[in-house]
């Protein structure tokens, strides 16, 4: 009953005056738009708005950022589906099947599925966040230390080894290439300089956003240009049909599974929506009877990725609010907004700022619902972007990708990295290697290397130490079994 009362009070604080409603709508639309523009993500919008929130009331300032966070994660799915350009890393797996659906004239169904499942994943996550923030946060940081997170990364890589590649070996070579790229820069423990070739800018490492933009957006433009040159280009069919209720209902298992995965990844500080989306997608592939159809335009692929990344949004607020531990760049920026308005996330937040906490909860709940409403309208309009002739669209895509790559850190080398990734991606895609595997190796490699080093320090450099950590050893065994199963399938099933 208290929860309901608090929720109602939070809702009144949100929508009690016209300015609040305007800011809410502005946050919803702004988050969707900035999330949809590749590279220029919701982080860019948040950074622009940060100084202005000081002039808003605490309720409005905190609500604005909560809304942007939810809708921004969804917004990146649109360009992933329509143009093979993920608006953010957490939308990358959405492109695996979303873009092939567009090519098959099913853009409406793909966007519709993304809208619906983003809303479901985010809303369920927000409800769990309202009910159980404090106990879940405490459990997560006690149960998951560096050994467990490393084990989770290992399991994720083992599961993902087959995504997007034509053969087992090409899948693993793709992931290993990603892991190799991840070690460029300072080593995360000793600060040792690696693979910098005397260039100080490489000490910051290869960032995954320019890499994603290169592998997905730039290489896609090259692919289409080549088709155009060969006279094999055909404009994508524009399908605005929303998925039917029966089609959506058929995704129920994938949705439930991805909610669990997304929520679980979201509550671990520093992991968040990107790993959630990849794991959601990978698990869908692993459990499917038609796993070969993934990557060719299967709705379940879009559903799994988008449900998981949005389910991670509410979950990420749990360690942020209850422990003061932000899981990513935007949640870290939210801490600054909270502090600007005298709300200090951490163990005392429910005591000192309960009213503002419920503003966050209510804002995220309604933001997720509004994804459904506004997303439905968007589906009927934004798909018409596909009608723009390729010769006009391609330069815009390249321009946006260039701006996006530079905007991440303001480093010109990121633009170079993006174009190199574009050229490499163009050739790798023709030869059956997986650009998704490279990206996953890059993202998880950075987390995995750091947590592995920390785990070994904690376990006094004794491998047997993993045996004393039940969750870690369970995940490692599961990863090894997955790997063995992949090898068995790759060799023996084929020869049989």
């Amino acid at each position, binding site marked *: 009953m208290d929860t309901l009362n608090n929720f109602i009070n939070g809702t009144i604080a949100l929508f009690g005056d016209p300015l609040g409603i305007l800011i809410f709508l502005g946050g919803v639309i702004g988050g969707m738009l900035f999330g949809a523009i590749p590279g220029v993500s919701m982080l860019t919008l948040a*950074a622009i708005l*940060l100084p202005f929130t000081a002039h808003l009331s605490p309720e409005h300032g905190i609500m604005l950022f909560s809304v942007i966070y939810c809708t921004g994660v969804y917004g990146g799915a649109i360009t992933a589906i329509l143009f093979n350009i993920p608006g953010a890393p957490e939308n990358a797996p959405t492109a695996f099947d979303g873009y092939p659906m567009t090519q098959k004239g099913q853009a409406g169904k793909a966007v519709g599925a993304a809208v619906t499942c983003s809303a479901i994943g985010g809303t369920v996550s927000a409800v769990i966040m309202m009910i159980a923030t404090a106990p879940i946060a405490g459990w*997560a*940081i*006690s*149960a*998951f*230390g*560096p050994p467990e997170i490393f084990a989770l990364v290992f399991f994720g890589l083992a599961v993902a080894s087959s995504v997007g590649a034509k053969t087992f070996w090409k899948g693993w070579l793709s992931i290993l290439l990603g892991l190799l790229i991840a070690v460029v*820069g*300072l080593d*995360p*423990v*000793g*600060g*040792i300089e690696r693979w910098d070739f005397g260039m*100080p*800018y490489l*000490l*910051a*490492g290869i960032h995954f956003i320019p890499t994603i933009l290169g592998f997905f957006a730039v290489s896609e433009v090259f692919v289409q240009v080549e088709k155009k040159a060969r006279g094999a280009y055909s404009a994508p069919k524009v399908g605005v049909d929303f998925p039917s209720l029966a089609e959506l209902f058929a995704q129920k298992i994938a949705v439930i599974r991805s909610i669990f995965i997304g929520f679980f990844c979201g509550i671990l*500080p*520093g992991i968040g929506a990107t790993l959630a989306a990849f794991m959601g997608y990978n698990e869908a592939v692993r459990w499917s009877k038609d796993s070969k159809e993934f990557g060719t335009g299967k709705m379940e692929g879009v559903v799994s990725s988008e449900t998981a990344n949005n389910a991670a949004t509410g979950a990420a607020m749990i*360690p942020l609010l209850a*422990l*003061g*531990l*932000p*899981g990513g*760049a935007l949640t*870290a*920026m939210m*801490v*600054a907004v909270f502090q600007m308005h005298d709300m*200090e*996330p*951490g*163990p*005392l937040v429910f005591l000192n700022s309960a009213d503002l906490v419920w503003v966050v909860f209510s804002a995220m709940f309604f933001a997720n619902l509004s994804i459904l409403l506004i997303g439905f309208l968007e589906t009927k309009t934004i798909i018409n972007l596909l009608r723009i002739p390729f010769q006009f669209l391609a330069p815009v895509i390249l321009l946006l990708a260039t701006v996006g790559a530079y905007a991440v*850190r*303001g*480093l010109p080398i990121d633009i170079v990295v993006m174009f190199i990734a574009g050229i490499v991606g163009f050739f790798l895609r023709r030869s059956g290697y997986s650009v998704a595997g490279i990206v996953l190796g890059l993202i998880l490699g950075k987390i995995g290397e*750091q947590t592995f*080093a*920390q785990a070994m*320090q*904690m376990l*006094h450099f004794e491998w047997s130490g993993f045996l004393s950590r039940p969750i870690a050893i369970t995940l490692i065994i599961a990863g090894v079994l997955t790997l063995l199963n992949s090898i068995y399938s790759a060799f023996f099933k084929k020869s049989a």
Partner: protein
Amino acid sequence: MKFTRYIASGLLACSMMLVSNASLAACATDSLPDSLAGPDGFPERALTMIVPYGPAGGSGQVAQAMAQAVTELTGVNINRDHKPGGSGTVGMTAYMALPTDGYSVLEHIDDASSAHALDSSKPNPASDLIPLVISQITFSQIFIRTNEDRYTDWNSFVEWVKAQDGKATIANVSKEGSMERVTMKAISDATGISMQQISFDKGAPRYGALAGGQVDALFEQPGDVRKFLDAGTFKPILTILPEAPSAFPDVPSLSDAGLDFQPLYRFRGFYVHKDAPADRVEWLQWAFQKAYCEQSYQDYNKSKFMHLIESYRDTEGARELITATINQYRDVYKEMGLDVK
């Protein structure tokens, strides 16, 4: 020569003063003029501040607070450009490549001094740059969980750590040559304890590791974990200062604990390129030093425990601090057997 003697030889200790309550009434730059016209209308447009770290950490926050204070004072906007990576190297390199017209300033921390101490080809913040102001100087503490029952204070902690035979763990930023690693070596030498240092480069996982019981202790500056102190989740058991500051009277200081070394400090400041026009530098010095005493900046510093030791250094004071710090690190690195270039 014993390691701790090198640390004790630093000038730094002489320049660090605990701030009494009486001295808080006046601010360091009250004597500067309330306004100063820039040369030939400088600055005619917004300034750019390069910040070599992300927006949410200590550097990002102090950059935001100082930019706001300068804008309140002068009406001049400051755009912050965050270039994180390479432990501050990327931001420094990017800054050194910018035009030296005085429109770009740099925020940096003591890592720039320790980087130059280890490799003299890297910019010396005292001579390749002109320090406008150092606005934060702070100390470190060792923290444990408040509900910890294996040890409750510094003495019982030392006893417990000794019994673990090197298996006790402490979370910090233990990169080679970092202030944290150097200080931990000094503590280990002085007490005879051996701890496994677990390196977390970001604050949130570092604090989560202690809160979740993944590590036994945490090395950190008190301002960065204030919310955990206010909530009673963490408690300090050792203050790495010669004497206990007013906010932590019951926490043993180095002298209380019988540890004979002088501490290294974390400091953050703002710089301009040495080739910037002198008259513009003069205006920037006035703006950043005067902004230090703006109420919003003082409030921010206080919220981060930056008022417990004198945080302010003008250009000359900053140069002395940086030079002393570089010499101190260089001696320590040689003692540690690092390759000092």
